[in-house]
């Protein structure tokens, strides 16, 4: 099967100070790396789960794929065509095929527009107004289990779950091939969380769209995604088929992240892999493997250089000098 989206060695940098200031302060590298050499492949009809703590670069990666932040190097191929270097006009047709569901559902809906107008915007922007707009909007609302009468409401009149469903409907408006969902369930109660995820699964079955789901909720990723990547300070430390990543993880960070989740059983015995401290700042990126400052298995070589992928060709990839399958001496 041809991949839908292929990202190859993508790098996104942000300037931290102006060139004059950098010159005066003799700073020859006035940049921080938001995304550092990330590669991923998404196939049609597949769900790719992207997991990481705050500040790991998940959202920056998504924005780069949408063409919303400039890319330093690497390639983003959508249906085989490289999106990097395209100007605004050239990238616009691709934006129809890639839709974004924003993190904050209420905040991403204009408070002064009725739901009806919010859902009509994608059509207006892309000059694709259907012959019968009200019918089309009714159809979109029905698709996400909302009644067409909801079109007359304002965003503040909706509950959190309903606002999220409007976000899904808006993403679906132009029949995209890929939907990037940034924290689709953050801030939702557990009883409603399932509703949104089930809706996304149903739409995938019916329409065949692919999803890139960005989240820090591992319990959700385990159920909904086919392929999972673990991101830390702008890099994918491990990625592979979801079952492999969850049951045969190789990276100590993956193990720590998975064991950090509390279990809803008061008598559960936790085999916690203690990792101390917090994710380092991008301004002081650690040398070598970025995770060595918190890693219980770190040795001198980890402080020195970043590990190479052990098996670059296989679907399950990880970057660690001392993967978990090897015992420590």
């Amino acid at each position, binding site marked *: 099967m041809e991949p839908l989206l292929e990202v190859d060695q993508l790098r996104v940098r942000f300037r931290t100070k102006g060139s004059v200031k950098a010159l005066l302060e003799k700073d020859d590298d006035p940049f921080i790396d938001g995304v550092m050499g990330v590669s991923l492949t998404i196939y049609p009809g597949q769900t790719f789960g992207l997991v990481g703590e705050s500040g790991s670069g998940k959202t920056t990666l998504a924005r780069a794929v949408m063409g919303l932040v400039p890319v330093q190097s690497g390639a983003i191929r959508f249906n085989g065509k490289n999106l990097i270097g395209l100007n605004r006009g050239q990238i616009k047709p691709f934006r129809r095929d890639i839709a974004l569901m924003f993190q904050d559902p209420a905040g991403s809906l204009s408070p002064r527009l009725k739901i009806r107008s919010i859902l009509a915007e994608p059509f207006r922007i892309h000059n694709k107004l259907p012959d019968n707009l009200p019918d089309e909007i009714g159809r979109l609302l029905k698709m996400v289990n909302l009644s067409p009468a909801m079109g007359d409401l304002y965003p503040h009149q909706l509950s959190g779950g309903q606002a999220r469903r409007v976000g899904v409907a808006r993403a679906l408006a132009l029949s995209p091939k890929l939907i990037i969902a940034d924290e689709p369930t953050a801030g939702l109660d557990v009883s409603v969380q*399932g509703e949104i995820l089930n809706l996304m*699964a149903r739409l995938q079955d019916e329409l065949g769209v692919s999803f890139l789901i960005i989240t820090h909720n591992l319990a959700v990723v385990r159920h909904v995604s086919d392929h999972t990547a673990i991101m830390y300070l702008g890099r994918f430390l491990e990625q592979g088929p979801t079952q492999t990543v969850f049951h045969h993880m190789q990276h100590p960070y993956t193990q720590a992240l998975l064991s950090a989740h509390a279990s809803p059983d*008061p008598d559960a015995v936790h085999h916690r892999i203690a990792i101390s401290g917090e994710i380092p700042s991008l301004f002081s990126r650690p040398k070598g493997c970025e995770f060595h400052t918190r890693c219980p298995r770190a040795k001198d070589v980890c402080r020195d250089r970043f590990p190479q992928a052990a098996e670059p060709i296989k679907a399950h990839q990880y970057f660690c000098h001392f993967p978990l399958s090897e015992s420590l001496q």
Partner: protein
Amino acid sequence: MTQPVLDISNLSVDYQTPRGTVQALRHIHLQVPPAKVVGLVGESGCGKSTLISAVIRLMAENAHVAEGEIRFMGLDLQAMSAAELRGIRGRDISMVFQDPMTALNPVLTIGRQMKDIQYRDPLSGKKKRERAARMLERVGISDGLSRLDNYPHQFSGGMRQRITIAMALLVKPKLLIADEPTTALDATLEVQIIRLLKDLQTDFQCAILFISHHLNVIAELCDYVGVMYAGELVEKGTVRDIFHRPGHPYTRSLLECDPSVIEEPTRFLPTIPGDIPSLIDLPEGCIFQDRCEKVMSVCRKTQPPAVHLAEHHTAACHFLEE
């Protein structure tokens, strides 16, 4: 039996709104025993925050206590004057809030804020700084004395939450109220904060009222749990009662919805269909009737009584037996 630190009995709170009276809390009975952690769990809009604001009597202007009593160490909080209450808040009762960035003042150093909170103690400024520095180290921030000169933005999210916990404990409270203290944090930090709270609670022997919508955190930290739904405490018991032998259908559904308990990967997750009923126009009978799988005609007519299931375990449902 020892006197509970906090004893809430038959508490009801209303909000007056242009659309009518919102009955946000109805007949809540809850005790927090000394040196125990009591968790309150419930989804948005169930009244958790209203309950806390009633306890510390910092309610919205349109809210009022319709009936019931809140006793702290045997004293009736409702009957106290504003000055008497100020003597209790921030000394005997402290709070940790959800968002540490908004709980700390961004234009003052941590040291200044940690010194100010000890204003009641007859110590010299230098002594107060030293106490603050020791407390910072106690919550896992090394080099406390020099970090006192930093501003809140110079700390990361997890450290800021540690600082607010340090501040809450500096006054040696008898009751600590923690309102979703880990919601804004990542999983690895959440574990660190929970472990810290557990350690500190053992050291300081204070009672904690812990509010969260996150079942897993409640299971790990708490001794007793209360489950709230649409303004009512539908079930309470020890943590094992609630998680191993849940009685109320709402508690059961809530536990089933948690994707981390479902072993086999599934594309379709369980949900609780329906919405919370309007608290202005309350339905007759059981509050959970519209979303309950077992609903019968009796549920639509009469309110279920609280049924005693075990020593500490009660649940309000028609289909339970003593």
